[in-house]
């Protein structure tokens, strides 16, 4: 009966309760939706980093990561790749050579990481293949407006991912690097590097394709060539491997598999994407904490509003509360009734807010939020300008708990105020 009275009491001053509920609703929508945007952004970043950049797990010679010495290749790399490929959790393995080089065009030059790959293997592990664009967009970006020039440009500039034969060596570079070097598909670039013997070596490559992902730093610093081309430049054997990049069928298996591989191959350096790009792992972990922090701040602010409202409620009903205590409603029950009223008041707005936020997240989660105006800024830090908000179900459950907790805490002061009064005096008050 007391819960029913508490619920009815919430609706006694309909307008006041509605105002509080609307405040809670708006607070929840704002908090949850912005949390989902941040969470979606970070999930997307992680997903894309895994998809294009790091893969799930990488294996190196234990000292390779220290200074990327050419000779730190993986022992029995071919067998190792085969063994890994046979593991149930592993979807694909790519054998890579990784060499720091200088790359130059007629316009400029810069240092990049050159990955020597087997294209057929690599495209199963990372999605750079899908990120190779023909140069239509690039033409526009270079300010080619003259239709004849664009036409000519388009005719002979179709990028590809090592799929077309060529007499010269091929290289796939990022769009950012292409812009810096002012090169386009079919243009030549020169690659300089140090061989295993310490002497300088160089080679001419033709740009086969230009890839475009959301991380412009990666675009600017990582280029791909066929592994045999890099082996002949460096003097490394054709089957030498610096890095095994592994893609799993289920990303939740990364942790367990890293443990298993570390145990099974004690002489090798096994790293998950979180170890390779620690800032990504940190972002995902800290983001969760930050999201709750945002919600706690919102709830704290709402909590003060709720305290204020409940104080008004108690003051207005002081005579009635006095009567209830006079006829035999004990303090615990009065306290419980006020607490329940506060919980009902808060949770109603909370549930409505969560419902609306869930719908918004669902809609924008599939349609995406397009922030085209900020494309450059987002891509510079590796984020996509199209955000897909997403948030786990557990967030809603935790949030419900937090709302109830806020309501309980917010009800304490008004309830204590109610309990402190003397029923005889309260009954005498004229309202």
């Amino acid at each position: 009966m007391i819960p029913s009275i508490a619920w009815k009491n919430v609706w006694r001053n309909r307008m006041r309760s509605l105002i509080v509920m609307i405040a809670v609703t708006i607070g929840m929508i704002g908090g949850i939706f912005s949390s989902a945007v941040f969470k979606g952004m970070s999930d997307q970043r992680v997903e894309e980093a895994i998809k294009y950049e790091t893969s799930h797990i990488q294996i190196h010679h234990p000292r390779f990561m220290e200074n990327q010495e050419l000779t730190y290749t993986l022992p029995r790399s071919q067998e190792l790749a085969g063994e890994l490929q046979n593991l149930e959790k592993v979807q694909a393995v790519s054998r890579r050579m990784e060499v720091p080089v200088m790359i130059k065009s007629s316009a400029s030059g810069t240092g990049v990481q050159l990955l020597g790959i087997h294209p057929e293997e690599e495209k199963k592990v990372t999605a750079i293949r899908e990120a190779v664009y023909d140069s239509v967009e690039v033409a526009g970006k270079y300010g080619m407006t003259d239709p004849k020039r664009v036409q000519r440009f388009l005719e002979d500039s179709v990028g590809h991912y090592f799929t077309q034969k060529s007499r010269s060596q091929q290289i796939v570079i990022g769009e950012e690097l292409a812009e810096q070097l002012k090169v386009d598909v079919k243009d030549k670039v020169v690659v300089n590097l140090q061989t295993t013997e310490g002497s300088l070596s160089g080679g001419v490559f033709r740009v086969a394709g230009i890839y475009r992902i959301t991380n412009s730093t990666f675009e600017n610093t990582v280029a791909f060539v066929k592994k045999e081309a890099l082996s002949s430049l460096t003097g490394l054997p054709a089957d030498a491997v610096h890095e095994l990049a592994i893609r799993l069928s289920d990303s939740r298996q990364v942790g367990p598999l890293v443990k298993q591989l570390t145990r099974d191959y004690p002489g090798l350096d096994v790293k998950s994407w979180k170890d390779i790009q620690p800032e990504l792992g940190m972002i995902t972990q800290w983001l969760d904490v930050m999201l709750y922090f945002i919600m706690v701040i919102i709830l704290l602010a709402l909590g003060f509003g709720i305290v204020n409202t409940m104080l008004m409620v108690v003051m207005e009903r002081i005579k009635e509360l006095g009567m209830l205590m006079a006829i035999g409603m004990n303090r615990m029950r009065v306290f419980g009734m006020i607490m329940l009223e506060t919980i009902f008041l808060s949770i109603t707005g909370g549930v409505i807010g969560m419902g609306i936020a869930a719908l918004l997240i669902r809609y924008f989660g599939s349609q995406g939020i397009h922030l085209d105006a900020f494309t450059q800024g987002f891509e510079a830090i590796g984020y996509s300008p199209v955000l897909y908000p997403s948030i786990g179900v557990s967030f809603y459950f935790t949030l419900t708990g937090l709302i109830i907790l806020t309501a309980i805490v917010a009800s304490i002061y008004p309830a204590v105020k109610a309990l402190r009064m003397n029923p005889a005096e309260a009954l005498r008050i004229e309202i």
Partner: protein
Amino acid sequence: MKILTLNNVHKIYNESEVQVHAVNGVSLEFDKGEFAAIVGPSGSGKTTLLNMIGGLDQPTEGEIIVDSTNIGSLKPSGLIDFRMYNIGFVFQAYNLIPVLTARENVEFIMHLQGRPRKEREARSRELLEAVGLADRMDSRPSKMSGGQQQRVAVARALASKPKFVLADEPTANLDSHSTENLLDIMERLNREEQVTFIFSTHDNRVVKKARRVITIEDGKVESDSTQK
């Protein structure tokens, strides 16, 4: 059979360093089935006296014994339970729970007592019929007249099967017709069901109906007389 005894009861308030002797050495006894009015002008101490009898206020001195329990010796939490089981209240301003219907208002105290649902329903129906509100059971207080609300309050006061009912100026807000009606109902309940009523009032119509009239002035009993 005595159900209530007041022995030399005093109540002193300290208001801004001036002592107010609101009740000054009152000794009274009440038997079961009385229909008594405590009368006196405003400020005579009758409400204070009634509050102490009802366990809402503690005497500064003296003792109040309800059915062999000295209510001055009870702790605040014990006092709340004591009130719930032993004393029925009717207030001047009716003080019903506005969000509950007449029937729910009557049932509420039985709910606090932990009585089973069936018993609550049967008794609330019986009591509301007794106060002539069989047809208004599902109305909320805001839909009822003052007289009807006060009748619900009487039914509520009786719902807990108290030793006696305390009514603080129950007719003060009622018109003469409602007053007559309410008094008739209370008198009938008193006569037929031996419910003990103790009123505070300065309404002559109530005084006339009372069988015992206790006059209070300046916190003291001026007269205590029985009338037909």
